[in-house]
């Protein structure tokens, strides 16, 4: 959701579907490498990441590559805080992102839908 706001402030268009679509081009600078670094990190593909770090560092610069890993590792923690506390979206965010949540498929992650989907087997 904040990606849309970044696009507005950068006066660039980003494809929000790239967040949930494995193949969509985000339009973000070095998006391919950011995606590769992020996915290998979150999926614990540490052997793959060895090569990706070298290639991404050569393409976008070592500090930017490291900072991409810094952001990914931070969000690997904070998403778990959200998931473990069941916090709702902030009120304003909820109101202005309804269509976007549906179009990108993010709506299926909401906690009520998760309960319907995953708790059903045991009830």
């Amino acid at each position, binding site marked *: *959701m*904040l*990606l849309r*706001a*970044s696009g507005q402030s*950068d006066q*660039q268009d980003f494809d929000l579907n*790239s*967040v*949930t679509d494995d193949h969509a081009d*985000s339009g*973000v*600078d*070095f998006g391919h490498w*950011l*995606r590769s670094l992020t*996915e290998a*990190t*979150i*999926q*614990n593909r*540490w052997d793959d990441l*060895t090569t990706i*770090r070298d290639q991404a560092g050569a393409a976008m610069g*070592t500090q*930017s590559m*490291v*900072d*991409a*890993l*810094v*952001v*990914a*590792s*931070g*969000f*690997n*923690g*904070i998403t*778990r*805080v*959200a*998931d*473990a*506390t*069941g*916090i*709702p*979206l*902030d*009120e*304003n965010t909820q109101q202005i992102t309804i269509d976007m949540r549906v179009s990108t498929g993010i709506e299926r*992650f909401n*906690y009520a839908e*998760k*309960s319907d989907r*995953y*708790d059903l*087997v*045991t009830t």
Partner: protein
Amino acid sequence: MYERTRYPLREGLIEAHEKVWESIAEPGPFWTGTERVAMVLESRAATSCRLCAKRRQALSPYAVDGVHDNETDLDAVIVDMIHRIRSDPGRITRNMFDQVMAAGITPEHYIEIVSVVNSSVIIDTLHAALGLPLAEPPTPQPDAPTGQPPANVTDGGAWVPIAVGNERPGMINGLSNNREPNIARSMGLVPSAVQLFFTAFRPHYALQNIPLDLKQSQAEFIASRVSALNQCFY
């Protein structure tokens, strides 16, 4: 911490992570230092736990019973909670939270676990992402839990009461209203848990003027992609 890396890491991040590591080893308001360090070990154990692997393959993680490959003597319901948070966070439901509460764990105890585990997830993830061995667990400090005065919380629609939240002037990236975002309020039931987690997290991200060698849009893309991979609604 991070002494062996060949990559450029900012000093502020290293200092923050070292501070968090030391804090985890100290007694918290509801758990001892030994128990808090055990939470870190249990989180690590989840990454190779056979039960967790089976659950990840199942249509519902709540349909697979069994015993975790645990590393500590923490109570079984806490081991299960930690393993689920570490190994399959996107499929945590209210059901898990209710099971923990039914076992007699208080929301305050729960929040402290969430903070310790996820602070260590940040630190462990960065080590692994940089190709480093995980940091040695900190040495637990003695003494009983410290307790805490009642927190200023409200029902904000989460599973736990959340901090009332401070009014903040202005907008954040044109999106937020003028109250603190819910993620910052989510662990408000235990103020020291908020402090611990955000000490670890703060060097990793900012809502604007991000102090990293990335454009804001690049950071938001990474953040959004992590949220999608972890099936995080927030």
